[in-house]
């Protein structure tokens, strides 16, 4: 069975959830081989094995973290030439998509981004990727017809399922060229998000919008998020007003999320916002305006004052957790 290369996303110790999703998807199309850059592969090996990795190609060099995107693309191009995989899967994060873009140019291959599912075409054609476009209004089936299919998979689109693999570690001897070392990372500034999960990875997202009325009131959104173990998001109205940092914006000019549960608080649901959350599995809404378009998407909606409804909800969740 041909290999499927899976580029691991990790923080140097722990593998991100999206990588377990990619492994789950890869197993249906070939033998998953993880590509691990930098250190930490030994510690993550057990988890990669749990989700069916057959191999782990480890390229242990600081270059992959010290320079953006290009070194990873170069490594993958090397592995594509050497291993002739059936496909390359990356996470559809900003970086994953950019790695995919560069790899596509290097290998003359087609790239599909923001894929939510992958089915075998059945014959010699490559796999067919499902994508949700125009803010979720249209679902398209696309395929790569030239080169090695490069597929960037949307986080949270696939439910990770365990299946044992051997996860044999295989060091890769590869030297990143000077050409790939031109955009140097000089520092990292991590925004305060407490113990909350990352927005695009979270199973539950609680977002606040214009109805909050001020930045201070986002404390309410954070309380609700923390009671659910959720990530915090914000509408464009809220980030434009400076109430919450821009990187938490959900919507067409921000992040696209598809969590198990999306809770929209004080958000009217303009198309710009819907484009970023419409594919969430379950949607709950609290808004004082019964005409707000966001209610059209709601599995459950409360028409009411968020400053009354949300504290009561937080209290009720607390009671149930205690009871």
């Amino acid at each position, binding site marked *: 069975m041909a290999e499927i290369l899976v580029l691991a996303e990790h923080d140097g110790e722990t593998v991100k959830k999206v990588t377990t999703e990619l492994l789950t998807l890869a197993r249906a199309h070939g033998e998953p081989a993880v590509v691990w850059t930098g250190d930490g592969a030994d510690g993550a090996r057990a988890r990669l094995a749990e989700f069916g990795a057959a191999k782990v190609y480890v390229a242990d060099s600081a270059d992959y973290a010290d320079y953006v*995107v290009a070194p990873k693309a170069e490594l993958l191009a090397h592995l594509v030439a050497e291993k002739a995989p059936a496909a390359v899967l990356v996470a559809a994060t900003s970086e994953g998509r950019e*790695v995919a873009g560069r790899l596509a140019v290097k290998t003359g291959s*087609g*790239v599909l*981004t923001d894929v939510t599912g992958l089915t075998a075409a059945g014959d010699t054609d490559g796999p067919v990727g499902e994508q949700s476009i125009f803010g979720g209004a249209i679902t398209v089936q696309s395929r790569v017809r030239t080169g090695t299919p490069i597929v960037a998979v949307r986080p949270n689109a696939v439910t990770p399922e365990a299946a044992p693999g051997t996860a044999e570690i295989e060091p890769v001897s590869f030297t990143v060229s000077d050409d790939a070392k031109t*955009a140097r990372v000089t520092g990292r*500034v991590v925004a305060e998000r407490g113990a909350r999960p990352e927005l695009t990875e979270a199973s539950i997202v609680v977002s606040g919008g214009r109805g909050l009325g001020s930045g201070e009131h986002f404390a309410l959104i954070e309380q609700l998020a923390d009671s659910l173990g959720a990530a915090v998001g914000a509408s464009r109205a809220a980030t434009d007003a400076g109430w919450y940092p821009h990187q938490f914006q959900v919507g067409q000019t921000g992040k696209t999320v598809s969590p198990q549960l999306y809770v929209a608080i004080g958000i009217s649901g303009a198309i710009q916002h819907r484009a970023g959350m419409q594919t969430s599995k379950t949607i709950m809404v609290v808004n004082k305006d019964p005409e707000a378009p966001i209610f059209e998407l709601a599995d459950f909606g409360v028409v009411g004052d968020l400053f009354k409804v949300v504290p009561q909800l937080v209290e009720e969740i607390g009671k149930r957790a205690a009871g």
Partner: protein
Amino acid sequence: MNIVVLVKQVPDTWSERKLRASDNTLDRDAADAVINELDEYAIEEGLRLQEAHGGEVTIVSMGPEKATDAIRKALSMGADKAVHVTDEALRGSDGLVTSDVLARVLGRTGFDVVILGSESTDARMGTLAAMLAERLGVPQMSFASKVETDGSKISIHRQADYGYDTLEATLPAVVSVVEKINEPRYPSFKGIMAAKKKPVETLSLTDLGLDAGEAGLTASATEVVSFANRPPRAAGTIVTDEGDGGVKAAEFLAARKFI
């Protein structure tokens, strides 16, 4: 400083966007066409670099004839001139083809810095800056929420899920911007009038050394096999808060096993 800003005309998010049943490509007649929103931030950043370092701002756009509207808007904001790549054979080009065409244009214009929006609101791939940097062999300074340059070195804040990274490189470079970076100016009346007289060079595929078979749908490495409109979500339960809205919301979450 030779500043080139890439601009794309896209279907307006606020109108109904469709694909053509005949070839699964974008139906450009179905929706109003507007300049890609993030590109306005790219134009603004280009104009600010020009104000600080002098030189010219050139707009480059690939698209059908009516993309001249987007180009004129960019010129009315203050850019000096434009290059419009337009050819019927370009229809349906994927990212790989688009980046090839644009890289060829950039080879003609030359550049110290190329600026573009981090993604378009229609395709939303977010890969063009990386593809161009790869093709042009220059540093990739993408997803920038802040750009600083002294004319030879460039540093940016690269926005990430966790906050941002700081990056450094030497010009020339490709920069993509996120909307946090600035507040785009509105075209003035004077700017709109002046834009009508600014030079717009039109290029065909032949001008770029490409055949019709090397662009568009036929040359693209990806294809849309089929599409379907997403079925509407089933109507949910909407309750009006009568003092127990939070309790009811908790009951819903419990019933769905979220709590």
